[in-house]
């Protein structure tokens, strides 16, 4: 038994879970722990039911959120996918169970086309997880800059809150501070970091390492500088440094203390202290509107992603099998496993009835 203690950030939780799953761990089934607690007498039945209600209500809320915000539900997408898979399985099973019947069987070409279509459907759901994470957990935004550039002041202005300790002693912010704010329905997860600065103070070094890791992962790096303290050459040097660390995200160069200088058209210019941050908010707004997800369904649940990845691996087996002349009973075997994993998401597991129903509905069977 290994118990992992970590900070209470849902993002960190998800990262840890992903890492465990990648290394072969299997997520617990819904209610498994509640069931165990119940069996061990740690909870009575009504408590267990209360947990179930709690879980259900949370799901319902996030389900509604998904429906409202994402214009389409995960389960309807999964059900659609399941229908397609059942259809595919029916074509295989038709030939297995009704080989003697006078019906037309699907040729290999058609089956290959169908399975490739299924693979791309599952794949796009899996990749949507990234976007889903961004929406559910917030767009990871790292706020970096040299000490005293005014990062904490900016954070407080963004959040209208006095959470970060503000002082003019460089290196006050040793731990990263994480806050959320929302613009146009998109959540931004703002991380205030320790300043970028070589130091011998080990505690601050820790902070800096963490800063680096946040920079690497961030979707947006807001680099803030104080033109009084930092020369243009130093700004350029810092930006290069960040770009080296973060290859995919966006880097916004933000010049603080706009009250003292004329604007620089390449940089976003604000005055954190005077709460003049409109140009930065505009940048967030435009990012949020770019993050339009259209009609695509978004997966936000790590367990769903796991089941989809499992399903995909069986679809890949089936596709290989189709190309290598694997017999239909073995192909059907792979498809059934894929269906089983999708069933783990929606809870529909009566595969054979669905397959037979589809066959009887579509083909004239019966001597």
């Amino acid at each position, binding site marked *: 038994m290994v118990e992992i203690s970590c900070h209470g950030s849902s993002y960190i939780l998800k990262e840890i879970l992903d890492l465990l799953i990648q290394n072969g761990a299997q997520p617990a089934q819904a209610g498994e722990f509640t069931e165990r607690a119940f*069996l061990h007498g740690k909870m009575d039945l009504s408590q267990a039911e209360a947990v179930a209600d709690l879980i259900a209500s949370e799901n319902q809320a996030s389900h509604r959120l998904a429906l409202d915000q994402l214009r389409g539900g995960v389960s309807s997408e999964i059900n659609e996918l399941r229908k397609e898979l059942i259809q595919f399985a029916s074509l295989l*099973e038709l030939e*297995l169970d009704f*080989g*003697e*019947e006078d019906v037309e069987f699907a040729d290999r070409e058609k089956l290959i086309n169908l399975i490739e279509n299924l693979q791309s459907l599952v794949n796009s759901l899996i990749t949507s997880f990234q976007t889903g994470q961004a929406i559910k957990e917030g767009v990871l935004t790292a706020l970096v800059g040299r000490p005293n550039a005014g990062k904490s002041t900016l954070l407080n202005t963004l959040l209208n809150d006095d959470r970060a300790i503000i002082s003019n002693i460089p290196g006050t912010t040793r731990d990263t501070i994480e806050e959320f704010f929302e613009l146009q329905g998109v959540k931004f997860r703002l991380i205030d970091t320790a300043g970028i600065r070589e130091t011998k103070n080990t505690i601050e070094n820790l902070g800096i390492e963490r800063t680096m890791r946040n920079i690497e992962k961030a979707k947006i790096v807001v680099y803030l500088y104080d033109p009084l303290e930092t020369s243009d050459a130093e700004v350029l040097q810092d930006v290069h440094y960040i770009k080296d660390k973060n290859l995919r995200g966006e880097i916004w160069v933000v010049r603080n203390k706009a009250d003292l200088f004329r604007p620089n058209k390449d940089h976003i210019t604000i005055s954190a202290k005077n709460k003049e941050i409109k140009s930065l908010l505009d940048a967030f707004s435009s990012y949020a509107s770019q993050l339009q997800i259209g009609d695509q369904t978004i997966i936000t649940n790590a367990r769903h992603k796991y089941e989809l990845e499992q399903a995909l691996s069986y679809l890949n087996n089936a596709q290989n099998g189709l190309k290598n002349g694997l*017999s239909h009973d073995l192909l059907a075997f792979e498809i059934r496993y894929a269906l089983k994993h999708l069933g783990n998401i929606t809870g529909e597991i009566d595969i054979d009835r669905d397959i037979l129903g589809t066959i009887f509905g579509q083909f004239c069977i019966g*001597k």
Partner: protein
Amino acid sequence: METKFDIIVIGGGHAGCEAAAAAAKLGSRTLLISMNLETLAKMSCNPAMGGVAKGQIVREIDALGGLSGQVTDSATIQFRMLNTKKGPAMWSPRAQCDRFQFSANYRKRLEELEHLHFFQDMATTITKKKQFHIGTQMGYTFYSSSVVLTSGTFLNGSIHIGKDQYGGGRMSERPSIGITESLHRLGFSSARMKTGTPPRILSSTIDFSQTDIQHGDKNPKSFSFQRQKRLSVQRPCYITYTNNESHNVIRENLEKSAIFNGNIEGIGPRYCPSIEDKVNRFADKDRHQMFIEPEGWNTNEVYINGFSSSLPKETQQEALLKIPAFRKAQILRPGYAIEYDYFPPTQLKHNLETKLVEGLFFAGQINGTTGYEEAAAQGLMAGVNAHHKIRQSESLILGRDQAYIGVLIDDLITKGTDEPYRMFTSRAEYRLHLRQDNADERLMPVGYDLGLITQSAFQQMANDQSTVTKTIQYFSSHHIKPSEMQKIEPIDKLATPKHALSFSKLLSRPQVHIQDLFNVEREEFPFSNLDASILQKVETQIKYQGYLRREAETVDKFIQFKELNIPQNIDYKSFMSISTEGKQKLSDIQPKTFGEAQKISGVSQSDLSTLLIYLGR
């Protein structure tokens, strides 16, 4: 007249005959009551046994010690292994039979059984005091400790041809009246089901030049594992098609069919629709296939499979006459639909005993199934379990991972059915394992333990099995050099591997068959002269290895705990989280191992989980 028996089997169809045979062979004094002893094990529908999934069931029945496989072999007029182009799990034996021989041979085998008694009469009442009392139409009362009811289509059976409607359990046979009402009084609920048959035609009036011929296999196999003599002569079947002209006749008369005029309330099988149903539902199809099946060696009567109907007999005739092969066809008996009572099988336990009345067992169509094979399988299980019931020994319950019979009974008991239930391979989640070729390995040990399989048959299977194991071991530990591989034809055509590969590795390729390896066999292990069925087993096991392993992983999450000891005197009643029924059963039975606990009906999966957690697992 003797009236006291251990077990009474009511009904002499495929379920009743297996039940009676099993109970009597095991040593129970058994009475078989049938309304007509001349129609025992009658093939009321088409004259064939087996087929996809059903053939596997017959092999399982044979491995358990039932009679259907051996009787089929004795009456076969054509044998085909279906689905051989698909994987070995799909291979399905099917035999066309002489329906008269089938019945006669079955009856002969039953008559040979020392403890089996027969009586021709109609059972009309079932009551239970200390013993069961079976009242009959002729006024007799028979007594027994256990009853197996296998009523087929006879309970309040009603035959429909067009608007004509009359009571009957089969064409020209009376319905059985009284049992349904008797069971209602005991608290059971019943519903109606429907099935149908096609017309029978005189083969001398068929123009066979207008049909395609279908021969039996060149190398016919048999159903029984206990080998018999090869079939040397076979009779062919023929295939022909309906056409638009005949569809028009059907379409114009659609409302005259009993299934469209409102006379029939029961639900019929979707996979066995009447011709009017096919024409109606699949209007875009301009022809439907028909199989012309001979009814026997010594008869001119043929069965028109695919043309089952409850249209008026004149319409059936008119529609048939539009088909080139049938321009002059003479109908011997028209097709008809039949409606009958069944008892939703969720009223049963896994041993096929009713939940309401201890000692009362149901098998066959009364449970909502269709098919000789499905009926026979249930009959066998009910017969065995009725015997075990009165001896107070453990019920025989087969798992879904063990046999199609297990899938069949588990589906019926846990899901119920509202249309006649037929087996399909897709119903079995472990179908790669549930093959016709290994039914002996799977079930002969069970049949042997029961006492239905002889020592010699069991020994034969065990010997074959050890040869298979030895061969597989040899194959996985001996390698073939690349230079030798040119002798293996399919490899020669593919790219030759650069390294030596084991026999198994080569054989696991889809293109390579065991016969291809004959060229590279060595003197130390000449496997080419092994029996064909053994070679087939070796190949199948090697090819399926990975899949079977994956399948087995999901078979039984409890399997590793089967041997786990359970301390005695556990106070099950103190377990808050075990179901009331589970607590009761566990307290009464006090299982010694976890495996025993698993077999207790009424102990649910979640009860077992609780128990496992209590035991510290």
